[in-house]
């Protein structure tokens, strides 16, 4: 029990919270056929995080959130510029933007790695979910002990805060989001400010990506933005039900993925454990595959 509290409770909660947060936003990205923007921004989070790190010298959450906001803006502006000046389609512009900015991030990271700070390319990709150890979590009593709670890894509070902000955003702007996703022209005509809401959505995607980034790495973030929501769309034709399915899939992938990565190899006699982030992303991909093969709404309704 104390082992679980110390080594597994925090990573599990962080994975579930991040999964649910990204999946919630992912619903609107999927509906707007903009899933790739989640991908783009998760990659651009890297240079954003590195630059804010270089400037402030620490992994402080405020600086990182600023980095998130700035990187989201840079991404959106760059995609739009490349699309217009290069006369290419949006997805091509996104691809160019995120690969090149991610590459810049890798170079920056390597360059400042020489100065000996613990942030490296491997972490950026896989995260370090397993390193979120709660040293004070020695037993159930720790949950009520303020001193022990103060020792919780700071990433936990960060992802929970971001999760709450995202839930509040979707709650307050639910009609704006739906209307802007379904019919942006009509949304503009009733002053639902689709362009502004779009920018807010993209900014929150960036904030969620950066908050998740440090804890779980970019692979899982990308998977969680796309897979649960895309799978949920294949399960139902109702938006509320789709969101519920996406949350269920996110929890399933996170919990099962974490457990399988940690204990799965042991069940087969291998004394190793796999990357939890990698396992969670793989599982969410498998869930999407299953929904593609067996989801009740996998074909568009006949006109």
């Amino acid at each position, binding site marked *: 029990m104390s082992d679980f509290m110390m080594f597994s409770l925090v990573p599990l909660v962080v994975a579930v919270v991040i999964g649910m947060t990204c999946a919630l936003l992912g619903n609107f990205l999927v*509906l707007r*056929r903009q899933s790739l923007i989640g991908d783009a921004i998760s990659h651009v989070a890297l240079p954003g995080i590195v630059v804010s790190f270089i400037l402030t010298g620490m992994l402080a959450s405020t600086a990182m959130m600023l980095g998130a906001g700035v990187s989201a803006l840079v991404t959106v502006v760059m995609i739009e510029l490349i699309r217009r000046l290069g006369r290419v389609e949006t997805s091509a512009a996104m691809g160019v933007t995120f690969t090149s900015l991610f590459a810049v991030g890798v170079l920056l990271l390597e360059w400042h790695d020489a100065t000996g700070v613990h942030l490296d390319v491997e972490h950026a990709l896989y995260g370090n979910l397993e390193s979120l150890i709660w040293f004070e979590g020695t037993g159930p009593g720790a949950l009520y002990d303020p001193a022990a709670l103060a020792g919780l890894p700071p990433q936990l509070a960060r992802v929970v805060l971001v999760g709450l902000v995202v839930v509040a955003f979707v*709650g*307050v*702007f*639910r*009609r704006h989001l*739906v*209307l802007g*996703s*379904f*019919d942006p*022209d*009509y949304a*503009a*005509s*009733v*002053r*639902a400010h689709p362009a502004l809401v779009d920018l807010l959505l993209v900014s929150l995607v960036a904030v969620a990506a950066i908050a998740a980034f440090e804890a779980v790495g970019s692979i899982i973030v990308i998977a969680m933005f796309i897979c649960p929501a895309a799978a949920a*769309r294949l399960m*139902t*034709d*109702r*938006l509320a039900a*789709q969101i519920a399915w996406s949350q269920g899939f996110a929890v399933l992938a996170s919990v099962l993925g974490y457990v399988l990565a940690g204990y799965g190899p042991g069940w087969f006699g291998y004394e190793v454990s796999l990357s939890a982030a990698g396992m969670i992303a793989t599982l969410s991909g498998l869930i999407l595959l299953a929904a593609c093969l067996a989801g009740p709404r996998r074909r*568009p*309704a*006949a*006109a």
Partner: protein
Amino acid sequence: MTESQRISDEAMKSPLAIQGLTVSYGHRPVVHSVDFITPPGSLSAIVGPNGAGKSTLLKAVLGITRRLTGEVYIFGQPVEAMSRHVAYVPQRSSVDWDFPATVIDVVVMGLFRDLRWWQLTRRHHRQRALESLSRVGMEAFADRQIGQLSGGQQQRVFLARALTQQAALTILDEPFAGVDAATEKAIVEVLKQLKREGRTLLCVHHDLATVRDYFDHVLLLNVRRIAAGPVDEAFTARHLQATYGGRLSPMQLTRLMEPADPANQRSE
């Protein structure tokens, strides 16, 4: 008050008065210096060839597309303050009908401005949406998935969404595009009914043959305003040739100039 003094008395009373409206994409003007006044209680058409800027004009009026110059007044007030009084029916093909929503969900979207973020959609909201649906004869489809609708049914759902706004002015972009004859007739009936209730309607319209039957006012547009006014005065062979750059055949024109034949109408 100086603002409203500059505009004419006619424009003050009009549900939609446009002055010197110009919209451009890049350096190319798509709509150039258009003046147009919609009389109250009229059913007006905007007619012109493809690329004449008809939809763009509507979008600029609605604030969807930015206008370069020009003023738009709703009952003499700048449109920014009066947008609540304008309802919009976009082109059916402009949205993704595979969206996870039911017919009633889409019609309830018309209540967007009446619902604050903390309010849930309640039964009386649904009731209002259902009333709009029954006006277009679609109440039986309320719980149907929108992806299952035919083109004509989709168009009627869009019309019902605009009806829930109970706006004084309704702007429609090609409401008859790709719908069957029966649906076209049903939609025209709803529009004429609205007109009888004293509402004003403005449609982008493609079919020259039905202009005389459906509409009482017309704006002939080809980037610039070619002519505007009551159909009998503005919808002339000379104006049409100017609008379509002389591409209409003499036979087409003679047929269009004949007064609407009631027997012909019924046989549709």
